[in-house]
């Protein structure tokens, strides 16, 4: 096999795919060379994941489609396993490891090395460790997957691909739950694999990453290819224009209104081992950002405000009154909303319809004689479907069938429909395309201006700096700084999130 740098490892031509009610792909095409990183861009629902799933044998393209040529031969993989065996490895948007098995078992799942009738554990663990070491990863082969952070699980998926002899590696939004540091080590791995001649397809909504890592950019829009660029020859605006058909002017609109009276105040909230002495407050018409590394305790603090966790000590004041929030129902009664970080686990009921998901939290408030008010539900769904530009064939579509970004929009719609006075958004733009991201930022500013108090958690520095009126930094479960106005600088915040126990603000 000649791994010549200028040869194509993969060519897909004129790929079509129709789902009931949706034309996901029409005439998509893609070319990938050995040792090349191809970025795949497009709005939510543009068909990126679908194109990759067709390649990986998850489902077949429509009959009237062109060819897929892999390593010089036309192929059509019927199952993901076939594709895997041939060397096409996909790391999904939603990870797919078996949580209760060890790393090694996961990597060789389905092809465990045998010694006679028994699994050859020694070979298994040694080969795995070698593969992991080569990637420069600190993971041990015998570790159980569920005990590891997402970044490591992802590394395991990549290692699995390499152990299987990958020629093409597909990464579908790999950095959406990684910290900066983890991202850098992922990029190191990508560069290593690239130098070994593996072709990599990289799907992401983060433009800076695309410009950092890719050699070429392929843009899809409504399932059609609208751009095919050499990365070094283009600008961000070129990509955005071919993605959404126009350029964006203001990514980060700020709430300009003057903050009103206090909505929430937290005093010395403590949950041992997770966060300590957390005090902060937020007012009407204010966007307050919480910035910190993944795992700093931001999510847990918000879960406490929302009644999911019980604090060991500390008080919560809502509109100046001391309140006890023992469940999310209490939180809802206090006009709070919470867009959670993990959308499949805590945000959505994936096998129910969009309509049911949007109205889930609201039912008790709009019931008529205990009955669900279907008309009202539909009205609200339509309102937010338009406002957030959710791309779905209809209210009855199962949420699980929507693209990742549109699922996120459904979660946001669920909470907006409740007209909260205090809205907590935990990583609200994860997996959302640049266009919609700007829309959501605009929406946050508008909400705040209309009198809502908004808390935003984000690990993206530009986002949090761009939209917040005030920012609290958190490190290791403690608030390490508070910044507003001109104090909001990259330097200040970086310093504050790396402060450790000994030196924190009084």
């Amino acid at each position: 096999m000649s791994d010549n740098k200028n040869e194509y490892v993969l060519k897909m031509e004129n790929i079509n795919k129709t789902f009931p009610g949706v034309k996901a792909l029409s005439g998509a095409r893609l070319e990938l060379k050995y040792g090349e990183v191809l970025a795949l861009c497009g709005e939510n629902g543009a068909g990126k994941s679908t194109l990759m799933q067709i390649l990986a044998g998850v489902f077949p393209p429509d009959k009237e489609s062109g060819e897929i040529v892999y390593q010089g031969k036309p192929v059509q993989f019927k199952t993901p396993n076939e594709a895997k065996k041939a060397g096409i490895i996909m790391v999904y948007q939603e990870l797919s490891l078996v949580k209760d098995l060890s790393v090694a078992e996961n990597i060789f799942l389905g092809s465990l090395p045998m010694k006679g009738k028994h699994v050859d554990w020694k070979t298994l663990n040694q080969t795995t460790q070698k593969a992991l070491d080569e990637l420069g990863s600190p993971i041990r082969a015998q570790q159980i997957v569920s005990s590891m952070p997402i970044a490591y699980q992802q590394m395991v998926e990549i290692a699995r691909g390499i152990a299987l002899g990958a020629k093409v590696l597909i990464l579908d939004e790999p950095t959406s739950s990684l910290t900066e540091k983890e991202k850098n080590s992922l990029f190191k791995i990508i560069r290593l694999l690239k130098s070994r001649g593996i072709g990599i397809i990289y799907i992401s909504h983060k433009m800076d990453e695309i410009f950092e890592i890719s050699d070429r950019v392929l843009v899809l829009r409504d399932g059609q290819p609208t751009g095919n660029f050499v990365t070094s020859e283009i600008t961000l605006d070129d990509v955005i224009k071919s993605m959404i058909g126009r350029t964006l002017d203001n990514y980060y609109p700020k709430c300009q209104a003057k903050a009103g009276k206090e909505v929430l105040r937290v005093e010395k909230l403590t949950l041992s081992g997770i966060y300590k002495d957390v005090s902060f407050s937020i007012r009407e018409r204010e966007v307050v950002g919480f910035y910190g590394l993944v795992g700093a305790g931001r999510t847990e603090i918000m879960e406490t405000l929302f009644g999911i966790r019980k604090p060991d000590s500390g008080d919560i004041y809502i509109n100046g009154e001391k309140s006890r929030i023992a469940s999310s129902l209490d939180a809802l009664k206090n006009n709070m909303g919470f867009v959670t970080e993990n959308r499949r686990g805590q945000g959505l009921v994936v096998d129910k319809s969009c309509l049911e998901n949007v109205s889930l939290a609201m039912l008790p408030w709009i019931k008529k004689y205990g009955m669900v008010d279907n008309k009202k539900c539909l009205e609200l769904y339509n309102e937010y479907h338009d406002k957030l530009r959710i791309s779905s064939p209809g209210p009855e579509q199962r949420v699980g069938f929507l693209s990742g970004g549109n699922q996120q929009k459904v979660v946001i719609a669920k909470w907006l429909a409740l007209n909260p006075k205090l809205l907590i958004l935990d990583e609200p733009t994860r997996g959302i395309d640049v266009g919609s991201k700007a829309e959501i930022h605009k929406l946050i500013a508008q909400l705040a201006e209309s009198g809502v108090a908004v808390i935003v958690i984000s690990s993206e520095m530009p986002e949090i700096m761009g939209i917040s009126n005030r920012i609290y930094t958190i490190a290791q479960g403690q608030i390490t700084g508070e910044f507003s106005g001109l104090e909001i600088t990259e330097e200040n915040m970086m310093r504050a999130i790396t402060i450790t126990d000994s030196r924190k603000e009084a």
Partner: protein
Amino acid sequence: MRAINKMGVFLKNQVIVLAMCMIFILFSLLSSSFCQFNNAMLILRQVATFGVMGCGMTLVIIGGNFDLSVGSLVSLCCVVCVGLVNVLGPLPAMLIVLAVGAVSGLVSGFLVGYLKLNSMIVTLGMMSVLQALTLIVSNGKYIPLRRVSWFTALGQGSIGVLPISTIIMVVVIVVFATALKRTVFGHHVLAVGSNAETCRYSGINDKRVILETFVLSGISAAIGAILLASRDGAAQNNMGMGFEFDVITGVILGGTNLMGGSGNVYKTFVGMLIVAILKNGFVVIGLPYYSQWIAQCFIMIVAVWCANRAIQRKGEIE
């Protein structure tokens, strides 16, 4: 083209009804005494108890649990019911029986919902407890109904050709079906069964929802027991023995997802009818009594197998 598609979807949704019709026709061909008016009425009277019990069980299974205690609960309720009708008269007796059912459901529901114990184990334990209580209450004796009253009409009487028990069953089914499809509570049960975690973050008290499904299962078992006691005009320790098996078989045949999250009360009823027709048919064509148990186990396995296939197919689309 669209019309054909729609037709296809409709048929796929109604496959259980078709299956029932086919079984009915099959038995009619096998035995001339099967498709008789009297036999049909017999089946209707037999299915009344199961039809009612299936309603509660459907909710429990949609919530992602099982209630194995309903059979013993029927025994206990029958014994209590007949005993109290003899002493207090029908109305107070029936109210107390409903309360017994609700309390039993409350206990299982609390253990499963709030303490997060496995429902199989909890209700298996409840099953023994209830059996023991039945024996204590009845002293191990057969209790005949001593006073003649309107109570016997519930299970034995009819309005026109329709047995009263059938009418009661239909009312219960309609109430449960409406509750599941249209009320906030029903939507909550469906959502909790699919993803309790999301519900917990969305202002839904998932523990309480689970508890309520068990309470309703207990109450529906109590109603079933009243119909049964009235029909038989007497009560015995083992009246409800094995009922949980029949009821769960019917619910599964009706297409309720064993993992929770979806199900339909009307289809459960069709499932119950299938079980009843099969049982009756086996007798009519002269199969020995105990071989029915084997046959029924076979049906259960086929039903679960079909359900699994359906789930797998769904997985493929995703």
